[in-house]
């Protein structure tokens, strides 16, 4: 286990801030991603708003409108729902340079339960024009994303996770190009797993199990959920004719929907969406929740066998 994506991102942002004076942070009394000390480290560069997210999001718009790069950090449930209209109308519509860091996403949140688990944040943010959406799959990719976010100009949503998750990528070889999916495994043309976020680790376990069953899978990692890499999706669909999407998020409106939207129009093939099925989360151990919601490694193996049999 390494750092959580949220702590990795926050830690790197602090590193960058030491040499880059061009951005400020807005916070609303949470322990979201380790930026609580930002104001002490960098005097005058943190604005605290108390527990008042609508005001914070609008103030971020005001700061950005005066030419400053702004990071807003809070739990994703508050960023995307309590301050939803402020994100839409005052950040996305005027195309302001605000990066919204949404933490505590998916069932992985665990014990805090449904109120604090953002399982619909991608669905909400994805429909706003002008916004870009990124999600890292481990601490290494989160670290890289901090640099991408600092250099980015425009509305950006970064989806981060509460608990530590296994390291997957090698820092020296892993690369993120905005809007380009990464091929993480390519064992053959039986099925493609398209995954975003920390579920990548489980998908990699699943494809190894499938390989032992002589089923050869590909794995596409979608770090940029919007704009999604249509070309890569279509290529995978053409090559394998069977697609399984995996996300720690509701299957309605998230990655699975985004992939379906592209493929149903441009290359219809058999699909299966693994994710939360029209249900709220609940308190408990995340691994047990994944089993309950049919998002565990064995569910992925089963889904692959089923979908290949349909071809």
């Amino acid at each position, binding site marked *: 286990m390494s750092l959580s994506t949220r702590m990795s991102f926050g830690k790197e942002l602090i590193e960058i801030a030491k040499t880059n004076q061009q951005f400020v942070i807005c916070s609303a009394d949470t322990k979201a991603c380790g930026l609580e000390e930002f104001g002490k480290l960098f005097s005058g560069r943190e604005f605290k*708003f108390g527990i008042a997210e*609508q*005001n914070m999001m609008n103030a971020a718009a005001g*700061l950005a409108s005066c030419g400053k790069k702004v990071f807003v950090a809070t739990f994703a449930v508050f960023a995307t729902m309590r301050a939803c209209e402020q994100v839409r109308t*005052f950040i996305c519509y005027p195309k302001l340079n605000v990066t919204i860091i949404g933490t505590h996403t998916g069932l992985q949140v665990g014990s805090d339960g449904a109120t604090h688990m953002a399982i619909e944040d991608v669905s909400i943010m994805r429909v706003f024009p002008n916004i870009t959406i990124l999600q890292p799959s481990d601490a290494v990719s989160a670290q890289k994303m901090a640099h991408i976010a600092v250099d980015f100009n425009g509305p950006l949503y970064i989806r981060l996770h509460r608990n530590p998750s296994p390291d997957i990528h090698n820092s020296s070889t892993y690369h993120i190009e905005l809007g380009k999916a990464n091929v993480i495994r390519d064992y053959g043309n039986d099925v493609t797993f398209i995954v975003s976020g920390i579920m990548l680790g489980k998908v990699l376990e699943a494809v190894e199990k499938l390989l032992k069953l002589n089923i050869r899978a590909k794995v596409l990692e979608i770090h940029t959920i919007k704009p999604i890499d249509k070309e890569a999706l279509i290529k995978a669909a053409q090559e394998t004719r069977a697609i399984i999407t995996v996300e720690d998020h509701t299957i309605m409106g998230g990655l699975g929907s985004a992939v379906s939207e592209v493929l149903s129009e441009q290359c219809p093939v058999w699909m299966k969406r693994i994710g939360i099925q029209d249900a709220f989360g609940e308190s408990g151990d995340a691994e047990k929740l994944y089993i309950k919601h049919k998002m565990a490694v064995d569910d992925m193996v089963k889904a692959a066998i089923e979908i290949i049999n349909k071809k």
Partner: protein
Amino acid sequence: MLLNQAANDTVSFLEQKAADIRKDIINMIHHAGAGHPGGALSAADIITALYFHVMNIDPKNPKDEGRDRFVLSKGHACPALYAALAERGFFRMEHLETLRQNDSILQGHPDMNKTPGIDITTGSLGNGLSIGVGMAMLASILDKEYNVYVLMGDGELQEGSIWEAAMAASHHRLKNLIAIVDYNGLQINGWVNDELRIEPLEEKWKAFGWQVIRIDGHSMQEIIHAFSISKKMCCPTVIIADTVKGKGVSFMENVAEWHGKAPNAEQAKKAVFEILHGGENNVAFNKNVVW
């Protein structure tokens, strides 16, 4: 208040400019066939004072980092703002006729990316003060001494986000933030204090840590005096401006129906006549007059 000749001239000039802007408002909304005349007319004197006397702005350099900022939190009153910007030279007067039409630079609510001189996109009520908080906070970091003016409606004070912003502004001692409440007393379905009481208003702002100035929002003399003293405070200032919805047009004054309705050709003609020559009570209204 005693005024010298120069100050008298300023007041006369601004009153004349406000009349021009009122005339523009009526013509624009009539031409568009939709819009919000009532709240635009109630805010016209305040907006005129800001754009022709108070704010440090340059139509030739509308993005200057050190300029004063204006946030029209009650975005539906934008015909008043568009008229002021055009009269001030931010864009050509001909654009006013394109309000709300396809491909116009003048949207139904302010859009900072389409209209020169608009500092921030607004329209959804209750959000402008928070945006002003962010703008005001940055002045010290940019090492600039600009002021941020936020014009709010009275009805939108019913939104909770306004009071989040009010708390933040005093907490952060944003003395360069000056809010104005266009207290015309009416919202779309009737009297504000019948729909959801906002009184006691002065006490509310004081309790949130603001300096409160109460004025007649149609007295140019009082408006410019209030702005002048608001710059000298050590905390955020709110100017509560008592106004009349539809001010300057007798049949629109204090009539909630004119919150969001366009005048027809005859109504527009009558309205412009009243604005330029005084109300029906002052001047015999002649339908055949050429103007």
